[in-house]
């Protein structure tokens, strides 16, 4: 398969993740959709790395995976803290910072 097919798949996955971030209200699912967007970007990075035969894109994909793991750790910690305060787990309800 040519590289273009992989790029098309990565674009579809990225846009699906973006749609999910916009339409879902549960912060857990929003985190999952963020993972989708990061995975779409990772697929494009690895496809371009294969295109040039160069390992830099793969290293960047590994670093993106590390950052995603950090984001999951902090995000899930925040969701657990929200749950402990008996607040609703819904991003439309959590708007104290909106003023």
């Amino acid at each position, binding site marked *: *398969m*040519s*590289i*273009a097919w*992989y*790029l*098309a*798949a990565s*674009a*579809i*996955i*990225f*846009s*699906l*993740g*973006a*749609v*999910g971030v916009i*339409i*879902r*209200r*549960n912060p*857990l*699912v929003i985190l*999952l*959709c963020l*993972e*989708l967007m990061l*995975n779409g970007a990772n*697929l*494009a990075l*690895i*496809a371009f790395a*294969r*295109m*040039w*035969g*160069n*390992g830099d894109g*793969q*290293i960047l994909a*590994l*670093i993106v*995976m*590390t*950052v*995603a*793991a950090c984001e*999951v*750790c*902090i995000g899930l*910690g*925040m*969701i*657990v803290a929200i*749950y*402990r305060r*008996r607040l609703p*787990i819904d991003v439309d*309800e959590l708007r104290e910072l909106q003023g």
Partner: protein
Amino acid sequence: MSTLLFFLAAVGAISGAIGVVALRDPFFCVLALVAHLLSLAVLFLLLRAEFVAAAQVVVYAGAVMVLYVFVVAYVGEGGRSTEAGRHSPSARIPVSASDRLRGAGAPLAANLRLGGALLGGALLVELMIALLGSGLKAIEGHGAAYTPGPRAYGTPAYIGNLLLTRFLLAFEIASFLLLIAAVGGVVLARRREGLEEEAGGAGRLASAPGERLAALDLTRPAGTGTMAEGVGRR
């Protein structure tokens, strides 16, 4: 063979992504993401990224998803009911004033869904134009030349060599970032006793009358959410 494998894995990855976006129950969303990640690992293997595919399966589909499943099980119904319907509040979550003010919640949600889908479609068209219409000749090819071997492109030896020579600084910064995130996760998710009742908690240094004030209490006042408080030792 590789064409068939590509289409199987791509259809799996995209349907997993649709499942994450469309399924109602967060637990099924997590399962759909696991299926998506496994299909994506097959795509990585087709692109000769062996080490990244293995890391994807072990770290993502293994460890991170277990974390998600734990949090979904911990939060339980609370995370599920708000998404299911705005007008059926569970016993746990009180109906807020905004809920009653915004009596017509259903059309708003439908509008949001339509707008999100439109925006996603526009983003997809734009990405396709940017990626496929770029005029690069190389994206029509099958990639650079590849010769199999123990230290070939994408093997653990190749990646390790790059990580410990050219990308040593990025590697160290990533490991430090992981450490900070682990500490931050513990700090955020621990139990804060007393913060709900008293804002500061500084006036509660010696809670019981007969209790002696230890030297440690001055550096660590009550209600600051220490590990000892989390297990109820104060």
